[in-house]
């Protein structure tokens, strides 16, 4: 009985949770979203550039994209964040006078997300039927216009679920930014929970942080499942009978 009581108090101390939740919602949540969403958007731009380089007919951009992707997918997130954040921190301070770790934190998350998103975009673009490029070129569009107008938009549509998965990963990975040293107002969800846990010697604030992450990520995973399902089943296209086939073409001879 004592043990159970002890565990309940460690993880589910309602008072400790109640004290930290307002700050988590007003400070932590916006900061987590700023980190995840801005690196998600920048990561998509970087990823698109990498994908286009990756399918280039020229070997040089292809190789640059390949090496970049291998490096940034192969490193642990914590290492990239520390190297970028701590390594470039002093340079940024010298140039701008700012010590805000957010820009470099976002940069590090973007560099990593870009590598993953680039591969997602590339596979999506490459999965578009070859006939699409051929039909577009047969109309007289250049290779570049065909890619921009016809092939890439279809490739991106197909990988939307995978992109949402990346956003989920970024929401979680944004917690690592605490390593760069955050002012009180810069703390994201995890850091606020962690600080409160350290101060009270109780883990309940971290449990509250965990619940908040799940409130963000679980609906997103369901969005992914929904999109996947819709894509697999198609918004199934009611195929109509060829109702006017007999009307056109008075010249049928065959």
């Amino acid at each position, binding site marked *: 009985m004592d043990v159970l009581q002890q565990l309940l108090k460690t993880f589910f101390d309602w008072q400790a949770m109640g004290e930290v939740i307002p700050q988590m919602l007003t400070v932590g949540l916006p900061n987590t979203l700023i980190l995840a969403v801005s690196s998600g958007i920048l990561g998509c731009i970087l990823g698109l550039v990498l994908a286009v380089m990756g399918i280039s007919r020229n070997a040089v951009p292809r190789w640059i994209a390949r090496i970049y992707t291998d490096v940034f997918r192969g490193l642990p997130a914590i290492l990239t964040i520390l190297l970028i954040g701590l390594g470039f921190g002093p340079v940024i301070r010298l140039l701008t006078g700012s010590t805000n770790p957010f820009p470099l934190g976002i940069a590090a998350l973007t560099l990593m997300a870009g590598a993953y998103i680039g591969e997602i975009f590339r596979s999506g673009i490459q999965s578009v*039927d070859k*006939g*699409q490029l*051929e*039909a*577009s*070129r*047969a*109309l*007289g*569009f*250049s290779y570049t*216009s065909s890619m921009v*107008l*016809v092939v890439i*938009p*279809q490739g991106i*549509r197909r990988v939307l679920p995978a992109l949402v998965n990346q956003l989920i990963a970024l929401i979680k990975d944004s917690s690592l930014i605490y390593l760069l040293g955050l002012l009180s107002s810069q703390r994201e969800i995890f850091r606020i929970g962690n600080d409160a846990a350290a101060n009270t010697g109780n883990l309940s604030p971290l449990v509250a942080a965990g619940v908040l992450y799940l409130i963000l990520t679980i609906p997103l995973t369901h969005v992914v499942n929904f999109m996947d399902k819709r894509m697999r089943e*198609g918004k199934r*296209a*009611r*195929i*109509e*009978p*060829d109702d*006017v*086939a*007999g*009307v*056109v*073409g*008075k*010249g*049928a*001879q*065959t």
Partner: protein
Amino acid sequence: MSEFKSGSLTAKNIHLAFGSNKVLRGIDLHVPQGTTASVIGPSGSGKSTLLRVMNRLIEPDQGDILLDGRSVLADNPDELRRRIGMVFQQFNLFPHKSVVDNVSLSLNKLRKMPKDQARAKALEQLDMVGLKQKADARPGNLSGGQQQRVAIARALAMEPEVMFFDEATSALDPELVKGVLSLMTDLSKGGMTMVVVTHEMGFSRNVSDTVTFMDGGVVVETGSPDELFSAPKTDRLKGFLSDVL
């Protein structure tokens, strides 16, 4: 009198190899203005490749291509392809765009027509193939026959001088073939210059002005439909006809 500003098309001594696979070995084809040439032959004989070389989706290794008597090999290939419409076996409509946008895309982006004007012209073109009422549908919601007619409208919108058809009815359910063939027949009768790769021997015999039989990357026989179908000279054509008829 022609409804189309069609032109003549000539291929001279076309050679093309994919690596060591010599797919086209000296093809000659002449399609006078306003006529329909059908190209028949067994699978793998190089018919699709010939069409792609003649609009320079693939560059020939050797030979010449003339549109209206003038060599086009030195031209910008993108501009050449605007003068030649192409219809594919698998339709290849753009699934992320509405039917009318499929047709107006090239008008808007290549002809630089304002959007509303391009749409109006595309609707006219769709009306011609009997599908104006489907303008705002997605291609995926149309039957195969309807999709192919949209693909024909898309190609016609650029007012091509020549139309290529690469087995345009081969992917269609039998009951949908007729609508597409009758549209192709109308185009042929309207004076469009056409090169039609087909397995539809009825179309080849009754609609086309000339028939060319290809096998193994060469033209084995060419002539009027009557000559080829009623009096084939070579054993290869006789064998092919007895297989398909």
